[in-house]
């Protein structure tokens, strides 16, 4: 095709020396203008920039939208109360497409181009694992809200933290006694065939064994699968409990097809809320879930004994008593995970204040100050509940909720204790060089 209008014809552009000089002079004038020196005196008045690695597109997009809302609400609350060390906080958002390769690029972009103080906010475990080396290379603290065990496994690096949400290994360990005592002793596991699913695959069997129960079958399903009935024949007939945890856009199909397969003759069901995050439990086809149990990080439905802090948090984020967006009952939140964004941002605030953080040159100090943290008390900054923090493995430990589906709502029937979920550290990040 001919370039009729000469768009690509460089010889036609007339950039004369005079024009160029004019442009340069104007630029220099702007730089010298009074308004421009606002932030150049010191970092003291410039905002603290938090690079937000967001799953805006890709299979994590439904989570991403709520991570965005929750983080924005937390930043607003922090800024309204005076910011961090007297400086405003600003979120710089980059979409990682829920893709590990892109995730690593985004971390690099935050470190070198946006020059953010930290990176924050990743959920999907394969993205965290893919991005962590980039955070280590750029020596930029990387606060994830992922729930996977990879941070606590100490297989990542000293710059990666998970201070806002309990890891899967701890969650499983604290809930196994309840499952064995109340649901059944013969358990079949269904989980996604990637890092997050492997945490469940690896840690549930020993946790149940300790309670006298057994995992009799493990069924791994590719994360992009869209139809599930073909996997169900692998569920042994003697199964007493189906333990399911699925992620991604097809979760509703998964639960519906399970219902079609079993009807009312189903084994007990124990699911991770991940199987239904951002999905209305009253969707057509989900009636058979009535009476089944779910893990919830933070309850989706308002509970009778909610603390004032929990109520304030729900109001700030904008979710109603059913866990849906205020004003749009069909827009269901990802309540079990997104609280971690709120709490992580407050941990960052605490650590930056402890470290007397001024700017990127203090990143090592920030890492050490975060590692020195021990406990987070329940309250407006930690509405999900109290947590303990292990600075050696960069992981927090909190309470877990087990909820029952009753009359189209989820009602918390059991809360675990922090001690139930503690385990021997598998390593020590603090021995690594900064």
């Amino acid at each position, binding site marked *: 095709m001919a370039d009729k209008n000469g768009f690509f014809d460089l010889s036609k552009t007339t950039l004369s020396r005079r024009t160029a000089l004019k442009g340069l002079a104007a630029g220099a004038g702007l730089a010298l203008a009074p308004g421009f020196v606002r932030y150049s005196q010191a970092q003291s008045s410039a905002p603290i920039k938090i690079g937000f690695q967001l799953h805006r597109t890709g299979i994590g997009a439904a989570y991403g939208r709520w991570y965005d809302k929750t983080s924005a609400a937390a930043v607003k609350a922090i800024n309204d109360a005076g910011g961090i060390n007297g400086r405003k906080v600003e979120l710089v958002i980059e979409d990682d497409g829920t893709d590990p390769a892109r995730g690593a690029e985004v971390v690099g972009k935050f470190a070198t181009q946006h020059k953010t103080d930290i990176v924050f906010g990743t959920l999907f475990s394969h993205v965290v694992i893919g991005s962590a080396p980039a955070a280590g290379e750029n020596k930029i603290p990387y606060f994830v809200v992922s729930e996977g065990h990879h941070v606590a496994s100490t297989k990542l690096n000293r710059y990666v933290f998970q201070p806002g949400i309990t890891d899967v290994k701890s969650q499983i360990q604290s809930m196994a006694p309840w499952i064995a005592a109340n649901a059944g002793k013969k358990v079949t596991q269904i989980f996604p065939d990637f890092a997050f699913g492997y945490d469940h695959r690896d840690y549930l069997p020993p946790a149940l064994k300790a309670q006298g129960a057994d995992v009799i079958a493990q069924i791994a399903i590719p994360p992009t699968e869209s139809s599930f*009935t073909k996997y169900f024949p692998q569920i042994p007939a003697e199964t007493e409990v189906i333990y399911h945890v699925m992620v991604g*856009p097809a979760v509703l199909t998964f639960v519906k097809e399970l219902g079609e397969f079993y009807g009312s003759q189903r084994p007990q069901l124990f699911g991770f809320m991940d199987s239904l995050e951002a999905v209305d439990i009253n969707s057509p086809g989900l009636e058979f879930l009535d009476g089944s149990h779910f893990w919830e990080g933070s309850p989706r439905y308002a509970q009778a004994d909610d603390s004032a802090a929990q109520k304030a948090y729900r109001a700030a984020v904008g979710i109603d008593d059913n866990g849906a967006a205020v004003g749009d009952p069909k827009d269901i939140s990802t309540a079990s995970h997104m609280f971690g964004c709120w709490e992580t941002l407050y941990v960052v605030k605490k650590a930056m204040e402890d470290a007397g953080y001024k700017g990127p040159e203090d990143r090592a100090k920030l890492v050490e100050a975060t590692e020195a943290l021990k406990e987070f008390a329940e309250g407006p900054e930690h509405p999900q509940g109290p947590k303990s923090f292990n600075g050696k493995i960069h992981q927090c430990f909190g309470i877990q909720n087990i909820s029952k589906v009753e009359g189209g709502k989820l009602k918390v029937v059991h809360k675990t204790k922090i001690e139930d979920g503690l385990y021997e550290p598998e390593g020590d990040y603090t021995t690594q060089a900064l």
Partner: protein
Amino acid sequence: MHFGPHLLLAALEGLVTSAVLALTALGLSLVFGVMRIVNVAHGEFFMLGAVLAWAVSTAISGHPAIGFVAALVIAPLLVGLVAFLAEWLVLRRLSYNPESTIVATIGMLYIIQQLALTFYGPEARPVEPPFSYRILLPWFGYSGYKLSVVAASALLLVLTWLVLTRTKIGMIMRATQYDRETAQAFGIPVERVYAGVFAIGAMLAAIAAVLIVPISQAHYLMGQDPLLLSFIVVIIGGLGSLRGTVVAAVLIGLSDGIISVFFSPTLAKIIATLVVAMVLVFRPQGLFGSAQR
């Protein structure tokens, strides 16, 4: 579960996959065959059909069947209109050049996908099936709706075949496919045929999507798998061959169902890809395609 019922379940699942795949691939094959265009955006027309089905069925209250039937009529028509406009605005301007249209349809893929993300959102949203009857077999339950999808798809395939072989429109399309220049010399408005074929191809994908959406929800990324599988089917079946497309869709769908039930879904994909490679090596025109003239 015993071998018999296990195989039955695998075959049922495979049939549902085949039915939807046959319709989608047929759309791709028609466009490929008549226009010689590789439509990379085909999967997005599929997605658009599902998303519009959600929009239509939520806008209409009353019994879910009313909303579904309305979606089955309105969604494909809207998708056809979009495809018609895309053909007129983009493909025609490129004089249907094979290389340029690939790039253009890749662009269309991203535009449609991102528009869906912007206006529809990242969630997977369900559409209620027109009826929910659970067929109770002695060994397991099965969705009655899924079986009706197979029947509906078979009916549509027969209908398409009748249109292509028994009507004047079909004859014009086949003439254009056989030899574009001669057809033009005989007074066939080739450009109008192209626009129509492109729209019909997209509509077939949209119908398949409306049928499948009560089973698996509408999501803005759902077009990728059908696109890939459709290409596999079209290559195995032979370009522009209706019979080849249907046979290949049943073959791929059933083998996918059975292999993934008894072995693993990954193995099913490996075998499908291997079959494509073998077909390309030993019978490049596809199982039922005619050799290049």
